[in-house]
Structures are given as C-alpha cells and as structure tokens.
C-alpha cells in the first residue's frame, strides 16, 4: 500500500435486482486524481454508480498532514464472489479485500443490518444514499427494503431532527428552516440564521415522497430527484431552489425534505421537514423574507434580490417555452369546444347576494349549458338557485374543480365571472359575460399557467387571469399584481414582473402592458 492511500470496505449488500451496493471509506492525498475499481479475481466488475462524500477527520485517518477521508458508495452490476476493491491514485494503489459486513440477501440488510449500519455511520453517508436514491434506480430499491415505508432508511430518518413549523430548536446559529413547494414543482428551502453563516456553509437536500397504498401499511416511500437545483448563500440565510416533476405532487400523500446543513468540514447537521404548499409568489418571496427578530429593512437585501433575479430568470428559461407553445395552440377567436357538451362555470360566487341575481337570470345558463360548475365562497348557496329549478346538474367546490380538470376533450367550458355577469346584465347584454367555449388546449394552458405562475391556491384566480388576458385591450394591464403582504416592495416588483412575463408568454406583446407593475404591499 502506498503512503497516504487508505481503503476499507464496510459492507456489501445484495440488491433485489441482482446488483450490489458497497459502502466504504477511502483517503488519498489532496489534488491527486483517484479512482476505484472492483475486481472479482482478475476481472473488473462493472460499476454502475459511484459517489463520494467528505468525512469529518475523526472518521478518517487521524493525525496532522493526513490525506482527507471520504466515504463512498458503489453499485456494482453483479454481486462479486471474493470481491477486491482497488484504489488507484498518484501512480500508487491500495486494495481492500475484507468486508466488515456482508449481507447474504437484500432482505437481511433491509430488516436491521443496513439500518443499523447507517445509524452508526456519519450522517453524511445516509444523506448521500438517500439523495442518490432519487436518481439511481438501484439505490431506489433501498427505500423498500424490509417492507417498511422508508425501507433501509426508516431508522435513520427517525433519528433526524424534525422541524415543526419554521422554527429550528436546539441548533445554535440556526433559527428557521422554511421549506415550500409550488404546484409547478418548485422546491425552495431557506435556512435562516440569527447571525451570518460561515463562508463555507452549504445546504443540500434530499426529497422523500410517500405514495399512498390501499391501506396505511401499504404506503410506499420514494426518493425524488431534484433537478435544476441552485444553492446560494445570503448574509444570514442559505437558500436552495430546484424543481421536481409536478406530476409527483398529484400522486404523493406526503412530501418530506431532508436537509444537510454543512457548517464547516467538521460540522454537519441534518434536519427533516415537510414542505408547505405555497403559491408561486409566496414561494419566491420567501427568498427575501427574514426571521421575525431581524432588523427592519433586512428583508429584500441586495443579495437576496440578486438571488431572486437569478431564480426568476431560471424559472422563465424553464417555463416560458412550454407556456408560449400552449398559448400558440389557443387562438382566441376559436370555438375550441366545437360540438362538445357545454359546461357552464361560474367563478367568483363569493357573496350570497349573488344568489338573487342568478336566481332571476337562471334561464341564461339553462339555455346555454348542459352542466353547471360553481366556484366561490358562497357556491353552495348560489347553487340552490339552480338546484331548486332542477333544470341543470350543478357541482360546487372540489367536485366542480375536478370536473373542470376532467373537461378537456370531453366538454367545452363557458366561463362566467359573477361580478362581470352582473355588469353585463345591468347593460342588458348578459351574453357578453360568457367566455368563448374553452377546449382541451385552453384547459391545458390554464393548468400549466396555474402551476408555473399561479397566484392563488385555487384554480379560480388563474382562470380569471387567463380570461383577463383574452379580453385585454391595448393600454390595459394584462396581468394584475398579486395583492399580498410582501417582504419588501422590491421583491413584489421583481416577482410580479416575473409572473407577468410567464402569464404573457407567447402572446403578441404589442399593447400588452406588464411593465411597471405597482406593488401591492
């Protein structure tokens, strides 16, 4: 063995698909390229996946001047007999043949062995495996080992420090950990400190989702890949933004984030929290938010606004082409519904006073629609105006939203905003309040806009904004700023402008006014 090269093989775990996982520790002098090879006799065993993670000094080689230690995980395409691991670096090599733990079967590893091993190892090992399980199918199988919902990670995760709400307790220097996800698949984590973090502080995350099964015990955990991730350090916060496939959000019953907060070479903390569902403006504004105890004016610092600009630019690069393409498929003068059945959709039925109007104008809807959906705080009461007459099937609330989502291709949707309907009736032209029949392409665009740039949790707001785009006139604002309590007017301006660009993606910009949006603070 060459001086400075050290190698040890901690365990070998057969995986259900015939591959195997090897965990170990290696150290080599810094600035020297190193590679690992797995040998079975004289034959190299193909390695499908390998990952290194730094280890604190006490877990590596002790003593001053020692080569830095790294843990590693390898996935080999098959389970080798008499495996021999070789580390080559700087013209030298080291090898390891003895394995501290060899599990005969995957199940044996999953039930207790691997869990115990993970628990005894530096937390970075478990974190690295969990994170990589999101991108590597062979590692993903660890999530199901032993039949427990979190598989081999069950015990390891149970020991992690949970964050309730935003507040982080018993972790000096860290006050808050805020995790959010949007309908469009954004994941944003902000860890806020009471003082500046050290320059070398880093934030990483791994995502775990729970897929519901037929019963409580049939739930299955999956590690989710994060893509387009971007981490940044602000004066008193660490921020990480990325995205997951939004389709996951419809399937999962729960989503968890495991945060690895590396404060320095020797200090690593792991936190576990559940991201809160947030609108896009709420999520992006979190970049500029501060802790409750922060000095006034710290929100929206130059650094935070700079990061916000970067993240919004990345989002636009990701979403704009898709939104523009969808917009191009929705000509505003088309009868997108063709001969399909017509679904009437009343939006903004928030005030019971609207019931009187809809009662005396019910024939306007009965003559145009085959079914009626009603959304709004007073939808139940408004529905009575139609149900009492018994001439139109009516759905309200979640059932109405579900029917709207399923309408694409099977029905055309005629949308009516209740307040605008009142204005049209007062003008003596109620027909003007009905939108053109919206078809499958319109609904696809609506759902995409709601995910990428939705300003309220409910689909209604996005539909109202879409209709506003359709009827806008030159000089009018195509996008109305989001009325909410912003962290700072500067953040409001940036986010509103970003949202406006997404909402108008693919539209002819002549006459569309989206710039200079006033911030509603």
């Amino acid at each position, binding site marked *: 063995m060459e001086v400075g090269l050290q190698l040890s093989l901690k365990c070998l775990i057969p995986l259900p698909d015939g591959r195997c996982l090897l965990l170990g520790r290696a150290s080599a002098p810094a600035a020297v390229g190193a590679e690992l090879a797995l040998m079975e006799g004289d034959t190299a065993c193909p390695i499908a996946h390998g990952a290194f993670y730094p280890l604190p000094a006490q877990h590596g080689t002790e003593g001053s001047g020692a080569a830095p230690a790294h843990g590693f995980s390898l996935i080999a395409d098959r389970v080798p007999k008499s495996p021999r691991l070789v580390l080559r670096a700087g013209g030298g090599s080291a090898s390891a043949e003895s394995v501290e733990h060899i599990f005969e079967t995957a199940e044996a590893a999953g039930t207790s062995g691997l869990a115990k091993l993970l628990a005894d190892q530096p937390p970075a090992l478990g974190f690295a495996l969990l994170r990589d399980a999101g991108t590597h199918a062979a590692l993903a199988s660890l999530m199901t080992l032993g039949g427990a919902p979190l598989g081999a990670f069950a015990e390891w995760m149970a020991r992690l420090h949970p964050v309730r709400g935003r507040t982080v307790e018993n972790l000096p220097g860290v006050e808050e950990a805020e995790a959010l996800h949007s309908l469009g698949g954004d994941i944003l984590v902000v860890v806020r400190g009471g003082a500046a973090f050290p320059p070398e502080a880093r934030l990483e995350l791994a995502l775990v989702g729970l897929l519901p099964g037929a019963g409580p015990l049939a739930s299955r955990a999956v590690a989710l890949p994060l893509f387009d991730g971007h981490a940044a350090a602000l004066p008193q916060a660490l921020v990480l933004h990325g995205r997951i496939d939004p389709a996951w959000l419809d399937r999962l019953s729960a989503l968890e984030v495991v945060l690895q907060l590396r404060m320095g070479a020797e200090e690593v903390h792991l936190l576990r929290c559940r991201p809160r569902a947030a609108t896009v403006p709420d999520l992006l504004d979190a970049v500029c938010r501060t802790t409750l105890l922060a000095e006034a004016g710290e929100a929206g610092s130059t650094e935070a606004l700079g990061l916000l600009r970067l993240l919004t630019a990345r989002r636009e690069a990701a979403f704009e082409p898709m939104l523009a393409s969808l917009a191009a498929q929705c000509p505003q003068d088309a009868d997108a519904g063709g001969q399909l059945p017509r679904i009437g959709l009343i939006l*903004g039925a*928030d*005030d019971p*006073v*609207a019931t*009187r*109007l809809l*009662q*005396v*104008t019910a024939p306007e809807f009965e003559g145009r629609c085959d079914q009626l959906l009603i959304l709004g705080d007073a939808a139940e009461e408004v529905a009575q105006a139609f149900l*009492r007459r018994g001439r139109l099937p009516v759905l309200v609330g979640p059932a109405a939203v579900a029917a709207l989502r399923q309408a694409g291709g099977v029905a055309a949707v005629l949308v009516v905003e*209740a*307040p605008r*309907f*009142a*204005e049209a*009736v*007062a*003008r*003596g032209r109620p027909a003007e309040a009905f939108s053109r029949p919206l078809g499958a392409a319109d609904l696809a665009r609506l759902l995409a806009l709601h995910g990428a740039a939705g300003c309220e949790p409910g689909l209604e707001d996005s539909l109202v904004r879409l209709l506003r785009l359709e009827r806008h006139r030159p000089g009018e604002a195509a996008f109305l700023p989001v009325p909410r309590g912003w962290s700072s007017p500067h953040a409001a301006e940036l986010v509103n402008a970003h949202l406006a660009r997404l909402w108008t993606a693919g539209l002819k910009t002549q006459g569309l006014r989206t710039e200079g949006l006033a911030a509603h603070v």
Partner: protein
Amino acid sequence: MSEARNPAGRVCIVAHSHPEFSKGGGELAAYRQFETMRHAGRDVLFVGACEIGTLYAETHDIETVMPFGEGEYVFSFAGMAEDRLAWDDPFQRGVLVDFLAGLDCEVYHFHHYWRLGIDLIDALMQARPKARFVLTTHEMLAICLHHGQMVKTRSRELCRKESPLRCLACFPDQTLERFAYRKATLLSVLSRFDAVIHPSEFIRARYRDWGLTAPHDPVVENYLGDAILDQPRLPADAATMAHRFGFFGQPTSFKGLDVLLRALPMALRGNPDIVLTVFGAEREDVLRLFPTLETMVEAAGPSLTFAGRYDPTDAVDLMRSVGWVVVPSIWWENSPVVIQEARRAGTPLIVSDIGGMAEKVLRDVDGLHFKRAAPVDLARVMVQATDPELRAALGASIRDVMGRAEFLAALDAATGMARQRS
C-alpha cells in the same frame, strides 16, 4: 272568484301594503286605483302586504294569504329577507306566486317591488308568461340603498347619479360587487315589465338614467280618489289666509320639518302675524326627532301649533284651513300626495326647488319655490307669501289634479288594456 269576468280582462293590483294598516302615499295610490277601477265596473282585485299579519307570523301560524273583503287579499311577508326585496323562504314565496297565478289575471299591476320581492315578480312572470305586467314606481329604492331617497348618508347632500363607487361612499361596509349584484338583479326583472308607470317626469328620468329603458314608461299622475275629487273646490279669503302656513305629514328626517322650524323665527321677524300649524305630529314627536330645535319651538310661542295626526280623508279639508301648504322635503320626492291634496284644496304651495316638488308645483302658478334645505330662503319666501295679493293670485291659478276619466284612460293606455277595450 265570485266576480263576473270582464271581457276587457281581470287586473290584479299587487301593493306593498294595504292602507288599512299603513297610510303611505304609495299604498293609498294603489288602493285608490283599485277603488276607482272597481267603481268603473272593471274586473279588479287587490292584494296587499300586511304588517299586522307579518308580525303575528313571528309567533303564530298564519296563512300566507288571507281574504280581506270582496276582491281584496292581504299577505304576510314574514318569509322575506331583511331588506324586503326578496324572499328568504322559497316555500312562502311559492305559496304567494301560486295564489297570484291562480287568480288568472290578464294584467298584474304592481305598486312598488319592496315588500313584494323581485324574485316573486320573476317567478310570477314565469308562471304567467302571457299576462301583462305593469309597475308603478313610488320612490327610487332600486337605484339607491339609502331608502331610495338619493340623499347622501353622511352629509344629507343630494345624490344625482348612482354608481358603485358613489354608493360605496355612502355605505363603506358594502362591496362594489354587492352594488353590482343588486343593480343587475333589480334591473333584470324591472326591464321585463311591459310598462312602468312613473308618477312624475323626475322619477322617470332617474330610472332611465339608471338603465331602465326597455319597458314602455309613461308618466301618469297618481289618482287622488273619487271621494276627494267629489268635494267642491272653494275659494278662500286671501287676506285672512295669507299668513297661515301648514305642514302636513310625518316628521321624518327627509321631510324637512326641521328646515321649516328653523325658518319660522326668521320669518316671524319679517312678519309677526305668521302662524304655522304642523299636521301629522305632536310637539313631542318632533322634539324626539329634532331635540336641538326645542329652543326655537319654545320661542315661537303661539305662532306655532302642533295639530297631531290626521286622517288622510280629512287632508283636503284641513288644507283649506291654511293659506299655504309648505313641503320642505330635503329629498327629491316623487309625486307627493300632499301636493295633490293641496292642489285639490286650492291652497297654493311653498316647496323645495328640486325633483318631484319643483315639477308638480309650477312656480308662480301653483305656488312658490325656495332653495332646498335653506331656512333663510324659506323664511324669505314665507314673508313674501304673506302678501294677500300674491295669495289671491296663486289661489286662483293653482291647477286641479287629474280627473277620473283621464286617469282611467291613461291607465288603460299604459297597461295595454285600451287596445282590448276598443
């Protein structure tokens, strides 16, 4: 129905009250129309809202609709919403709609929509699609949430145009959407009437400005009734009557009695012979409403008399006992019955220079005008009015009100019955 069917068609007058239970100008006009048509041999029914029955319904079971004399019915509106513009209880509404539809009338003539329900009118229109629907307006409740007065809530300034933002200034606890819903609901149903009869040009212009332009909308004066018109119109002694002034009506905050009482001391300085009699209220009633006027009332001494409540059938006689009838309302008014009664009595009027008052009292023909809500100007005009020559001239020129034949013809033309009768 016991009445024989008239070939010209049965008419049902549906009113917001029965004058047996309240004596407002609207219900009196509705009932006088009923009596006049019946005396003319028309097949006519009267259905009026009943406050007594409604109060009783709060604690006891009561039929929604009850007979109240030959061809007359009253109904409880206990199932209505608080604003009395729609029904909270669809069952009771349905009972009333079924009853009205079952009367099998060719014409449903509504007096007002308050206490009747815009939803009830809509339902009856659907139940009787071939009937003709006529409405007589009595104030501007559809346009203005402030009791239909079009007077601003916080300043008592006059309001000249409705819009959601203007209305929000008067009712800041409401929402823009609510004003839009309210207007659309009312306008939607009112526009479906075949005819809307306005008792004044003024109120017709207000409803047209508001958007009610679809129905035929003639101006037809409310009819004062055969009994009053049968009374002789006697000339008065101008020299005796010129300094006697009378106020007739309820001392509500919109009727402007406070303006008149503030004007009285100033007018007395101009002519100490002036006397004012307040008909319709006792001294205590007035001071309860306007406590700050107590000093002025005391100072007026024998120049001011409170005559208490009076029977509407005595109004014309009582008006002959004064030289001038003062109508100092601070709201627009529509077609005040007090003005009609004074004209019938031959007693000239002094009125605020706005709305239905200015329209119905031609200046220097039927009386005099003063600046609305201005006691100084009213005092000036009262002093001017004590001139016996002026009183005599206006007593001679004041016009009488619409006669019976003219009213029935105008009504037939408005309701479309004229075509059927010819």
